[in-house]
């Protein structure tokens, strides 16, 4: 185990080294959202998938392997699948452009999860008195990136054949596993940030798999 102080410093170090990547990713996501109507849902989703893929490559190598693994040996088994996710998400976004759109409930859940990842999670450290230097930024911090990825997966067009459905399932696995693992680590440190992770994963799965998940059209 490690101290909460050292854990918080991981974000500080990651932000110092990779803030430009986080800014680039957030700016890119903003551009995609602004151009959503012009791009259409399929191309918009694919573009966001590419950005999330880049986020996981950066997060896996910089944060997980470079900073977190030295103090938590269990991360050694988790960052490679998340690095692979960085390659899988752009592929999924591309191959599912002709997929069936999801229903209203998954879209709203996705919006809520995305807002949580981008707007709420970065505020946690400053509001807790730890300062902006330790803010959890999606694209660098794994928990925020995982929640953003859940949002994307919930709203992902539905695959029409079993091969693409298998690819989608493969994408869910490391993200949900990460949410569970990180929640356990944070619980061990009595950190309140543990609370939303498992519910977020369950909410995302429920929204995706439930009968309300399909488009009425």
């Amino acid at each position: 185990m490690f101290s909460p102080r050292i854990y918080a410093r991981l974000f500080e170090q990651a932000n110092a080294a990779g803030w430009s990547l986080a800014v680039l990713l957030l700016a890119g996501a903003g551009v995609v959202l602004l151009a959503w109507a012009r791009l259409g849902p399929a191309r918009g989703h694919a573009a966001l998938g590419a950005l999330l893929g880049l986020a996981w490559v950066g997060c896996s190598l910089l944060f997980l392997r470079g900073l977190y693994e030295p103090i938590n040996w269990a991360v050694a088994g988790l960052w490679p699948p998340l690095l692979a996710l960085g390659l899988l998400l752009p592929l999924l976004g591309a191959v599912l452009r002709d997929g069936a759109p999801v229903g209203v409930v998954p879209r709203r859940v996705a919006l809520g999860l995305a807002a949580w990842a981008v707007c709420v999670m970065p505020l946690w450290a400053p509001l807790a008195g730890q300062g902006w230097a330790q803010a959890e930024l999606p694209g660098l911090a794994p928990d925020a990136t995982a929640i953003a990825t859940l949002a994307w997966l919930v709203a992902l067009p539905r695959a029409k054949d079993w091969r693409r459905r298998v690819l989608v399932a493969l994408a869910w696995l490391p993200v949900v596993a990460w949410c569970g693992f990180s929640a356990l680590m944070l619980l061990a440190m009595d950190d309140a940030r543990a609370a939303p992770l498992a519910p977020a994963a369950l909410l995302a799965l429920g929204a995706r798999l439930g009968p309300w998940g399909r488009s009425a059209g």
Partner: protein
Amino acid sequence: MMRAMQSTRHWPRRHVLGTLAAGAGFGLAAPLGAQVVPPLTKPIPKSGEALPVVGLGSWITFNVGNDRAGREASYQVLRAFFEEGGRLVDSSPMYGSSQPVIGEALARLGHPRALFSAEKVWTSDATRGPAQMEASRAFWGVPRLDLMQVHNLLAWEQHLPRLLEMKAAGRLRYVGISTSEGRRHAEFERVLRGQPLDFIQLSYNPADREAEQRLLPLAAERGVAVLANRPFREGGLLRALARHPLPGWAAEIGCRSWAQVSLKFIVSHPAVTCAIPATSRVEHLRQNMAAARGPMPDAALRRRIAADVVALL
């Protein structure tokens, strides 16, 4: 009420000589101009070698990874530890990056001669034991580790014979076993009875006294040194006591904090050789080491300390 440190007549003569030897050794190892009073020592029963009664643990506190600020803080703690006359530093492969952090700090300190390195072997695959222990030694940057313990009794049936062979070959000086939080005490007792151990490590503090029933008396009977981990329950004991003022008897034994009360309670048990509190703060380190000086509680006061602490929790 209390037993003054100066009353050396209460200690075996071998201990007195060990204390004097430790004091001389400390004088050689201490920085020039240091004015620190040497800490109280106790002898390792099997050899008579003197160990200061307060050492340094590294669980969580030294696991700072690549954080430069964290590594600097760890170096400062270790530097203060040796300035205060400390010797025994305890770690394990289980403690994340603690081993390389300790090694880096020791290298910066020029490898103090006073160091007593206490490590552990922690793998269920006994074939990996030798490589793991060699990696630990390399992290510390020492030619030989002083004490190797089987961590939490993991695969002890396979590891212990190998450790005893290493000791016979001069590659280790002492062999031991460890546990924590009261786990596996029955098995711990069986191993302590049946194996030629030099050290055991277990959890012991004013609130966790199960070891007093069987393990501490057995260790004393078999001439086995005792390291006490979790002296503060990883801070939980101190947080629970923090809102209560120190009782009047604390000043009589020179305690200014509950941490010092806990440490003096622990190290004043006749069977305990050394307590190993962990900290990442120099001021706490110095407070902990201060508990190795001055008057110690006698049996009556120890009973009172335990009763008062439990009543306050």
